[in-house]
């Protein structure tokens, strides 16, 4: 029972991520965010340098992809969720393994 509800929570988080992407691809505001807005108003937005991966396939959450705006955002978002899940899982798996190895070494030594 507990395990089933834990899995339910994991599926729920993933579903919430997909829902966010669906909302982002159709309804998200394209206005500048707080920092961009302030930078424009205070006249220092032009000090921003071109991003290293500005021309990359996923830059600007799909701006560089062919196809409709909403679909671009959705594809970029889904890829981002996949990459973040894998990297996140990998990082926490390593943190966990590193800690248990150290614990074992400390216990035997």
């Amino acid at each position: 029972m507990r395990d089933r509800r834990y899995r339910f929570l994991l599926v729920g988080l993933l579903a919430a991520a997909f829902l966010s992407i669906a909302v982002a691809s159709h309804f998200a505001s394209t206005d500048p965010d707080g920092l961009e807005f302030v930078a424009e108003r205070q006249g220092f937005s032009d000090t921003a340098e071109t991003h290293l991966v500005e021309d990359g396939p996923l830059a600007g959450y799909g701006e560089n992809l062919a196809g409709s705006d909403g679909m671009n955002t959705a594809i970029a978002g889904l890829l981002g969720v996949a990459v973040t899940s894998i990297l996140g899982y990998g990082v926490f798996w390593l943190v966990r393994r590193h800690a248990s190895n150290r614990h074992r070494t400390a216990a035997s030594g």
Partner: protein
Amino acid sequence: MHIPDGFINGATSAGFGVVAAGGVGAAVRQTGRYLSERQVPLAGLVAAFVFAAQMVNFPVAAGMSGHLLGGVLAAVLVGPWAGLLVISVVLVVQGMFFADGGLTALGLTIVNMGLLGAVGGYAFYRVLLHVLPKRAKSVGLAAGVAAFLSVPLAALGFVIQFAMGGTADVALGVLLAAMLGTHVLIGVGEGILTALVIGSVMSSRADIVYGAPAYAGVRTEELV
């Protein structure tokens, strides 16, 4: 809130890169102490959710939008140090693949959104939990208010970085007022979203929530 390259000079960016690396190192050690094997997929998926949620820019005022930072959200779910790792993973993915947030500015942004937003925001959460009534419902409320406060805190971090190494000539008082004014508004959205997510997880699986106090672990309205 993602700082592009160029806003802050190289020396200051490098300095905050060192601070961020130290924070992430501490987070790896601290997280290793308590994270169980079963929490590994949860932490990974929290990162995925924060990534997706940050894509939803909501309108805040005329001509301005805001998006979730997710620091307090992640910290309450998986702990403040794991929360810092969650935010760092999200920022690395956004900077490396999505051209969102400069790569030399990564340390600056990790300090603002991770160290201040997640770890600092979690400190607010603990204080609020202490003063609010000892009910399960207080968890979502404390998380929401802490999340609200964490956004101007992160904005303050940027102003300090700008004071140390901003490349443009902007009056600091004006910048401070502008950053706090806009980010208090964005914080309202952050607070509502965080309270909703934490509240719904609390009602389904309170025992998985790292920041939930013992009295909220069972589904009783009032216990203490």
